[in-house]
């Protein structure tokens, strides 16, 4: 696992971001100026304190303005930032202990979904999530976070263990989607996702899911049927990727930005539509600027939510979990079960 992104940083510029998103260019320019001035100050023993203070304050203001006005497409890019914290980073930053469990006992160990026993604050949990990989070697091993059926079956096997031993389940979702390949189809990725959703809907232990980065379609919801579903502030969650949607509806990949807007895939949109329960705030400028703070916010949310859920009787929890998904959908109807209009 890479630790380069885990260095403590603040909103004051540090040359930690090796990757600059296109809309972050003005920020990078300012950052460069600050670094140059700092170097000059050190080199020539001239006092630039007030200039630097001004520049830093400009930087923070611009960072704030940029991130307050992210377009949906820019949000998707933040969610995919190469230095955005991933599952194993969160494990390291949040958990006192993590005992990884391998394999679906059917076919293989899919490294795109990681499962294990973990201690999070006072809670003993089963922690499950997608991991994309940081360097090239790890990315290939993890198949870039695109799981095969064995990943979903491993996740279910571990959830059943959690149910048996009374451990709550926490899932962290970060995938562009389930892998669309030959082996994936041959071994029934659709069946694996379907079975997971059905079993999660009746798993007799509390479940919390957080979309931490990308929430790509069936590959995401295959581990995200839960009592509480939250999203990190700059995560996205949709039935299809903006590129995929653009390809089908606009007949080309050039309209990904339009598709991202049309799909209403940001945490704000989904909270407003009642599809997710909560938004976990990210540090100023996104989780990739400050993984420690991002992990801290995530841990706070999980700890509190687990505490709340553990108080509920399991039968009540299951009834509410069923209703939570049962109520999803917007349609017009004269007869009601749950009539919703607008």
């Amino acid at each position, binding site marked *: 696992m890479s630790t380069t992104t885990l260095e403590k940083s603040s909103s004051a510029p540090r040359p930690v971001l090796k990757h600059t998103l296109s809309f972050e260019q003005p920020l990078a320019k300012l950052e460069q100026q600050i670094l140059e001035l700092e170097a000059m100050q050190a080199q020539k023993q001239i006092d630039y304190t007030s200039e630097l203070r001004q520049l830093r304050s400009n930087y923070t203001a611009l960072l704030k303005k940029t991130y307050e006005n992210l377009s949906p497409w820019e949000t998707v890019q933040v969610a995919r930032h190469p230095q955005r914290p991933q599952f194993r980073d969160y494990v390291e930053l949040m958990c006192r202990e993590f005992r990884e469990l391998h394999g679906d006992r059917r076919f293989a160990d899919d490294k795109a979904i990681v499962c294990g026993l973990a201690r999070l604050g006072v809670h003993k949990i089963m922690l499950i999530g997608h991991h994309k990989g940081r360097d090239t070697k790890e990315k290939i091993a993890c198949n870039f976070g695109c799981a095969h059926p064995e990943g979903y079956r491993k996740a279910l096997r571990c959830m059943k263990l959690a149910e048996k031993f009374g451990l709550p389940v926490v899932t962290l979702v970060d995938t562009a989607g389930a892998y669309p390949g*030959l082996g994936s189809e041959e071994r029934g990725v659709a069946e694996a996702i379907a079975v997971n959703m*059905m079993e999660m809907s009746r798993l007799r232990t509390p479940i919390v899911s957080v979309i931490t980065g990308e929430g790509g379609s069936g590959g995401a919801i295959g581990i995200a049927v839960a009592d509480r579903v939250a999203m990190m502030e700059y995560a996205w969650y949709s039935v*299809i990727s903006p590129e995929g949607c653009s390809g*089908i509806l606009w007949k080309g990949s050039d309209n990904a930005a339009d598709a991202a807007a*049309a799909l209403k895939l940001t945490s704000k949109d989904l909270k407003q539509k009642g*599809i997710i329960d909560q938004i976990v705030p990210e540090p100023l400028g996104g989780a990739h600027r400050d993984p420690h703070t991002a992990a801290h916010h995530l841990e706070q949310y999980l700890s509190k939510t687990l505490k709340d859920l553990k108080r509920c009787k399991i039968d009540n929890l299951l009834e509410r979990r069923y209703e939570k998904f049962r109520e*999803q959908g917007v*349609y*017009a109807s004269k007869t009601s079960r749950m009539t919703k209009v607008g």
Partner: protein
Amino acid sequence: MMSDQQITGGSAKNDGIPAGLWMRCPECGDMLFKKVVEENLHVCPSCQHHFRIGARLRVKQLLDEGTFEELFADIEPIDPLGFVDKKSYADRLKAEQLKSGEKDALVCGKGFVKGRPLAIGVMDPNFMMGSMGSVVGEKLTRTIELAAEEKLPLLIVSCSGGARMQESTLSLMQMAKTSAALGRLDEAGCLFISLLADPTTGGVTASFAMLGDFILAEPKALIGFAGPRTIWNTIKQELPEGFQRAEFLQEKGFVDFIVPRKDLRLEIARLIDYCVK
């Protein structure tokens, strides 16, 4: 996810049934007398190609004559997200309703097969490629809940390009909703027969379609998660012969058995007799 099927269509005009007395089989190329094809349950008499059929025709073919009681027909789609691509979803809905005569892509209710009562939901490929949005999800879930409550066997006929993009995450939620309802049906001890017709892909395959106690498929039906083109774009390799066809899925262990259209009623009745007291 919506599959490539949406691109290649399957709308009324290119499903191989043009107006007029004669039609050409897209599989073997034979010129066929339309009436003969209709009498043969819309199966080519020369090569046994199974034509895609609309939901009402399917219901008529499957159920005992005059026994269909349609339910939840008042549920209609609206455009919850104000979705606009090259065309607005609201306009698309109107056009599809006009074209298909249906309000959305699912017809459901109760009826009898060879005298055996059941609940039934049938997807309609003529309405936005049978895609699942809020209406399909809600009608299916109500049908599943009805089956559980009245202890009826349930038959769902899938024929769909997947989850409907124009309702985005709401469509995704229908996958979880229908799967959760089927979990309850399972606990109620009810029989669920899932019949996969051409095509069954995307979020429909990855939810209720793959959760049958018995999974049946029509011959050569395309069944898969990702569309063939998406897979090709990913792996850049020739796909094996018959990949994602019903026979391939049976070979790989995901379909119980393949049923020619003419035998469907018999096979469904047989399963009911084994499983329903």
